[in-house]
C-alpha cells in the first residue's frame, strides 16, 4: 500500500473533476462521490498507518519511503519531485482524512438544500487532494504548490456564499494576507534551492543532507540557515494565522461552518505548524538559534494575545476562531522551544477537539438560526447530543488532565517550555487560564440558563450531523493516549523522522529534561485551567462576580479587546490605504507624465516641427520657385511689346543696334585707356 500512497490525494482529485462536471447528475448530488473518494483515502491512509507503525514497514524502509519522478529540466540537471511516507506524513494523513471524511458526511446535513450544493463538495474534494499532497510531498516546491492550492480552496469556500459582501471580502482578505506570508515562503525556497542545489528534502543530494552549505553568515550577521528558517516561517505565520498576519482567520468564519471546522481549525491552518515541523532540520541546523527564538516568541505572543480577544467576542464562531489562533500559537510556540514532538502532538489532538467544537457550533447554528451567543442560552436540554460532545471537546481544549486528549498534549508543551524557556512557560500557563475562561463563558452562555430570545425554536440536528460529532468527541478523549508521559508512542515514532544527525541535535538541546510525568508542570497546567473554569463559573453561571461592576474601571480595556486591538483598523489605515494611494499615484504618473507629457509631447513636437517645416516650405522654397516663375512671366510680358509684327519697327531696331555696336567698337579702339579707371574700380 505504501508504494501506492500517491493514490490517496489522487482519488479526491478525480472526485473533484467528476462532481464539477456532472454536479447534480452525480450520486447524492455529488456528495456521495466526494465522500466515497475521501473515505477511500481514509481507508488507504489507515492501511498505510497500520503497515508503517505495526506492520514493520517503517523498519523495513529505514523510517522513510520516498519516490521521485522527473519534473523540470534546468540545463543539464533535472528537478525531481515525488512523495514520501514517514511517521510525520502518516500522522498528517490520518488527521486530514479522518476529519475531512467526518466533515464531509456532516455537510450532507448542514448544507442540505443549498443552491450550490454540488460545488461545495467539489471544493471539498479539491481541498482534500491539495492538503493530502501537501503532507506527503517530499519536495519544497510541491509543498508550496499544494500549499497555495489549499489556500485557493480556502478562498473558494470562505467565499462560498459570495453574494454576501462580507463573505467575498473575507475570502479576498484570507487569500491576500496568507499570500504575504507565502512570498516569504517562496523566498525561503529559492534561498534553499540556490544554496543546497536541491528542492528535494530527502536523500544524499537532498536539502536536509546539505544544510551545512547554508551555514554561512548572511545579512545582519545571521547564518543563512536562520534566514531560510525565518523566511519559511513567514509562510507559517500567514497560513497558521500568527500575529501579525492573524487577521484573516476570524473573518474566514464567513464560510460555511463545516469548512471552518475542517480548513480553518483542524487541517489547513495547521499546515503552518506542519511546515515548521517538516523543515525542522533547517531550524536545528541554525547555529545562532535565532530562527527558533522568533518562532517561539511569535507563537507565545499569539497564543496569549488571541486568547484575550476570545473573551470579548459574542459570535460563537469568532470565539472559536480566536481560540484556534491561540492554539496554533501554542503549537508554534512549542516548536520554537524545541518541543518538536509536543507541537505536532498538539496539532494531532487539537484537530479532533477543535473540529468537534466547530461542528458543534454548526449544529447550534443549524438548530437556532443564530450565531450570536447573546441570543442563545438554555440549549443544553434541547440539544443534548450537541451539548455533551461540545462539553467534552471544551474540556479537552482546556486541557483537563488524564481524561482528555488535549490534557496530554498541552502538558507536554508546557513541560518542554519549563525546561527550555521559562518566559514562554509563563505565557503558556496564562494562555491556558484564559482559554479555560473564555471557553466556559461560551459554554455557559450557549447551553446554560434560560433562552434569551424566545422566537428561537432550537432543535437537535439530524443524525448525519450527530454521528461525526460523537466520533470526534470520542477522539477528543482517546486520541491523547498515544502520547502519555509514560508510554509516548508518538514521540518514539516522530523523533526519528529528523534523521540521525538532527535527532541527536534535538536530544542535546533537551538534555537533562525530565522525561515522564512532571508534577510542577502538572500543577501549573491543571491549576490554571481549573482557575479559568472557576472564574467563568462565578461570573457567568452563578454570578457572584458582577461583570457590570468592573465595567467603569476596565471599560477601555474591554473596548480594546472587543475591537481586537484595532489591528484591522490599523491595517486598513496604513497598508490598504497605502497600496491604494500607490496605485492611484502610479496611474496618475502613467497617464499624465509618461503618456501625456512624454509620448504625446513627442508627438506634438513632431507635428509642430512638421508644421514649421511646412510653413518654411510654402513660404521660402515654394516662394523661390514662384518668384522665378514670376520673373520669367513678367519679363516675357514686357518683351512681348517688342514683338509687334511690323517690318519697319524691326528694321528700325536692327539699324539702331548696328549703330550702337559700331559706335561702341570704334570708341573701344580709340579710347581704350579711358576705361581703365572704371575697370580698376572693379578689380
Amino acid at each position, binding site marked *: 500500500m505504501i508504494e501506492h500512497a500517491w493514490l490517496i490525494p489522487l482519488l479526491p482529485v478525480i472526485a473533484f473533476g467528476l462532481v464539477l462536471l456532472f454536479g447534480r447528475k452525480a450520486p447524492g448530488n455529488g456528495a456521495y462521490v466526494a465522500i466515497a473518494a475521501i473515505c477511500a483515502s481514509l481507508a488507504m491512509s489507515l492501511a498505510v498507518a497500520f503497515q508503517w507503525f505495526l506492520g514493520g514497514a517503517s523498519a523495513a524502509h529505514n523510517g522513510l519511503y520516498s519516490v521521485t519522478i522527473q519534473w523540470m529540466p534546468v540545463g543539464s540537471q533535472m528537478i525531481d519531485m515525488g512523495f514520501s511516507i514517514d511517521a510525520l506524513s502518516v500522522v498528517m494523513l490520518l488527521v486530514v482524512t479522518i476529519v475531512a471524511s467526518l466533515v464531509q458526511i456532516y455537510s450532507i446535513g448542514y448544507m442540505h438544500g443549498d443552491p450550490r450544493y454540488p460545488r461545495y463538495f467539489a471544493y471539498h474534494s479539491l481541498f482534500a487532494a491539495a492538503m493530502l499532497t501537501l503532507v506527503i510531498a517530499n519536495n519544497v*516546491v510541491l509543498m508550496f504548490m499544494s500549499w497555495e492550492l489549499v489556500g485557493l480552496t480556502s478562498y473558494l469556500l470562505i467565499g462560498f456564499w459570495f*453574494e454576501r459582501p462580507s463573505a467575498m471580502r473575507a475570502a479576498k482578505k484570507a487569500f491576500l494576507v496568507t499570500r504575504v506570508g507565502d512570498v516569504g515562503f517562496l523566498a525561503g525556497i529559492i534561498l534553499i534551492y540556490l544554496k543546497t542545489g536541491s528542492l528535494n528534502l530527502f536523500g544524499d543530494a537532498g536539502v536536509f543532507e546539505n544544510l551545512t552549505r547554508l551555514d554561512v553568515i548572511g545579512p545582519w550577521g545571521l547564518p543563512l540557515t536562520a534566514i531560510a528558517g525565518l523566511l519559511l516561517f513567514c509562510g507559517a505565520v500567514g497560513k497558521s494565522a500568527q500575529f501579525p498576519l492573524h487577521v484573516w482567520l476570524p473573518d474566514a468564519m464567513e464560510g460555511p461552518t463545516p469548512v471552518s471546522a475542517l480548513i480553518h481549525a483542524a487541517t489547513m491552518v495547521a499546515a503552518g505548524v506542519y511546515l515548521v515541523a517538516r523543515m525542522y532540520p533547517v531550524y536545528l541546523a541554525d547555529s545562532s538559534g535565532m530562527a527558533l527564538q522568533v518562532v517561539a516568541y511569535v507563537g507565545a505572543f499569539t497564543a496569549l494575545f488571541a486568547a484575550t480577544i476570545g473573551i470579548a467576542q459574542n459570535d460563537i464562531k469568532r470565539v472559536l476562531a480566536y481560540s484556534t489562533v491561540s492554539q496554533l500559537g501554542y503549537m508554534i510556540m512549542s516548536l520554537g522551544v524545541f518541543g518538536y514532538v509536543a507541537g505536532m502532538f498538539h496539532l494531532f489532538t487539537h484537530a479532533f477537539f477543535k473540529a468537534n467544537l466547530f461542528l458543534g457550533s454548526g449544529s447550534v447554528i443549524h438548530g437556532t438560526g443564530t450565531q450570536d451567543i447573546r441570543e442563545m442560552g438554555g440549549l443544553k436540554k434541547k440539544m443534548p447530543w450537541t451539548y455533551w460532545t461540545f462539553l467534552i471537546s471544551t474540556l479537552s481544549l482546556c486541557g483537563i488532565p488524564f481524561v482528555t486528549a488535549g490534557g496530554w498534549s498541552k502538558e507536554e508543551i508546557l513541560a518542554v517550555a519549563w525546561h527550555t524557556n521559562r518566559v514562554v512557560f509563563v505565557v503558556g500557563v496564562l494562555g491556558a487560564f484564559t482559554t479555560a475562561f473564555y471557553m466556559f463563558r461560551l459554554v455557559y452562555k450557549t447551553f446554560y440558563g434560560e433562552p434569551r430570545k424566545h422566537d428561537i425554536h432550537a432543535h437537535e440536528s439530524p443524525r448525519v450531523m450527530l454521528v461525526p460529532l460523537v466520533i470526534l468527541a470520542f477522539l477528543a478523549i482517546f486520541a491523547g493516549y498515544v502520547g502519555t508521559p509514560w508510554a509516548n508512542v508518538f514521540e518514539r515514532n516522530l523523533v526519528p523522522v529528523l534523521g540521525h544527525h538532527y535527532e541527536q541535535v534535538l536530544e542535546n538541546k533537551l538534555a537533562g529534561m525530565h522525561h515522564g510525568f512532571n508534577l510542577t508542570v502538572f500543577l501549573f497546567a491543571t491549576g490554571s485551567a481549573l482557575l479559568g473554569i472557576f472564574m467563568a463559573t462565578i461570573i457567568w453561571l452563578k454570578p457572584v462576580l458582577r461583570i457590570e461592576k468592573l465595567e467603569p474601571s476596565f471599560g477601555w480595556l474591554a473596548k480594546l479587546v472587543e475591537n481586537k486591538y484595532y489591528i484591522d483598523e490599523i491595517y486598513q489605515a496604513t497598508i490598504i490605504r497605502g497600496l491604494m494611494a500607490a496605485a492611484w499615484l502610479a*496611474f496618475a504618473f502613467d497617464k499624465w507624465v509618461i503618456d501625456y507629457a512624454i*509620448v504625446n509631447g513627442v508627438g506634438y513636437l513632431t507635428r509642430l516641427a512638421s508644421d514649421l517645416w511646412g510653413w518654411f516650405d510654402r513660404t521660402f522654397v515654394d516662394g523661390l520657385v514662384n518668384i522665378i516663375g514670376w520673373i520669367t512671366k513678367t519679363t516675357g510680358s514686357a518683351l512681348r511689346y517688342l514683338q509687334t509684327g511690323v517690318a519697319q519697327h524691326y528694321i528700325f531696331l536692327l539699324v539702331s543696334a548696328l549703330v550702337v555696336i559700331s559706335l561702341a567698337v570704334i570708341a573701344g579702339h580709340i579710347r581704350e585707356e579711358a576705361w581703365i579707371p572704371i575697370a580698376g574700380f572693379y578689380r
Partner: protein
Amino acid sequence: MDPNCWILPLITFVPLVGALIVMFIPKSNYSAIKATSIGISLIPLALSVWVWFAYDRSGPQFPHGIQFGVDAPWIPSLGVSFAMGADGLSVPLIFLTALLTTLSLVYSLVINERPKEYFWMFLLLETGMMGVFVSLDFVLFFVFWEVSLVPMYFLIGIWGGPKREYAAIKFFLYTMVGSMAMLLAILAMYFNGGRTFNMIELAKAGLFVGPEYATVGALVFWGLFLGFAIKVPMFPFHTWLPDAHVEAPTAGSVILAGVLLKMGTYGFMRVLMPMLPEQFERYWWIIAVLSVVAIIYGAFVAMAQWDFKKLIAYSSVNHMGYVTLGCAVAGSGAMASQSSKILALNGAQMQVFSHGLLTGALFLLVGVIYERAHTRMLTDFGGLGARIPVYAGMLSFCSLGSLGLPGMTGFIAELSVLTGTYNASPLLTGLALIGVVVTAAFMLWTIQRVLLGPLNPRWEKMPDADTREVSSVAPLMALTLLFGVMPMLILTIFNGASQAIVGLMH
C-alpha cells in the same frame, strides 16, 4: 538541406494564400468567408502541432544549427537570402501563433461589420507573425515584422472602439519608431559582419567585441533594444499598449497580447542576447531594473483601473516584466551561475507562453462580457458568479492563473525567473515579490468586482457563455493546466534553447 525544409514556408504562407482566397469570395457571403478563414487557419495549426512533435528536443539549436532549415538565395547581390528555421525558441511560438489565430477567428464569428476585410486581414496578420518567428535572415525578418504591423493597424482602426483612430495611429507610429532604430542597427551589423543578413552567421561572427567597438556596439545595442522594448512593451515605452488594447476588437487584443508582444521578447532572445553578448552583459542591469519597475509599476497601475480591458492591458506590462527580467539575468555574465541563468531564461520563455495563453483567454473573456453588457466598467458589474457560473469559472481560472497560482504555467514561469534572479540580485527578487502580492490583490479584486457580491439587477437576464465562447477559451485553459502540472512537456523545448543562448554569453 533539411528534408523537412518545406514545412516552415508552408506554415508561413498558407495564411497568405488563404487571405487571397478570401478576397475572391463575394463579400455578402458571410458564412463562406468565415468558414474558409477558419478552415485555412487550421492548416498552420495542424502543421505547427506536427512541428512540435517532429522537433528534436536534443537537436541543434540556434546558432549552432537549426531545424527544419531552408536557405535559398533571394537578393544575392546584397547578401539577402530566404532563410528560415526553427529551434526551441520558436517552436512553441509557432504553435502559440497558430492556436491563438484559430481561436480568435472562432471567437470572431460574430463579426458582421465588413467581415471579408476583417478575415483576410487576420490571415495576413498570421503570415506576418509566423514569418517573424521563423525568419533567419534580417531582411526577411524585418519585412515580416513590418507586415504584421499593417493588418493590426487596420483591425484597430476599423473594427475598434470609439477612440480607435488615435489608438491605431499611436500603435503604428510608436512601433515604427522602434522599427527604424532597429533597421539602423541591423544595417550596422550588416556592414560590420561581412555583408550578410544571415542571422546565424551574424550570431557566430562575434560582432562588436573589444573596446574599439564600445561606442558603435552600444549604439547598435540600444537601437535594437528600442525596437524590441517598444514591442514588449517595457516600461517606460508601454503607454501605446493600454490604448491599443482598449480600442482593439477582442480578437485583436488577443493577438496583440498573445503574439505581437512576444515578437519583442523573441527579439531579445534571438537577436540581442546571442548577437551582442558583450553589450548585453554590460547593460543587463538596466534591463533588469526596468523589468522590475515594470513588474511593480504595472501591478500598481493595473490596480487603479476601472476599465476591465485596460486592467488586463496593464497586467500585461507586469507579466512581460518577468520575461525581460529573465532575459536580463540570463545575460548577466558573471553575476549568476550558469544554471541560474538557464533557469531564468527557461522561466522567461515559459512566461511568454503562459502569458500568451492566459492573457489571450482573459481578453476573450472581457470580450464575452462586453458583448453582453456593452460596458467594461468594473463598477457596473457584481454578483455575476451566481448568474453565469460557466463564465465565472473560466474567468476565475484564468485570473488565478494570471496571478501565478501553482498548477498553472504562470507559477512555473515566475518561480523560475525569480529563482534565477535571486542568484544575480536578491534585492531585485525581493522587489519583484512585492509585485507578486500586488498582482494577487488586483486580480482578486477584479474577480470580486465582477463575479462576487449581490447581483446587479441590470444583468438578471444575462446569458451564460455559449459554445463558441467556451470553445475559444477552453483550449487555452487546458494547456495552462497541462503545462503547469507537467512542465517537462514544454520545458525540455525551452531548455535546449536556453542552454544554447546562455552558452554563447560566457
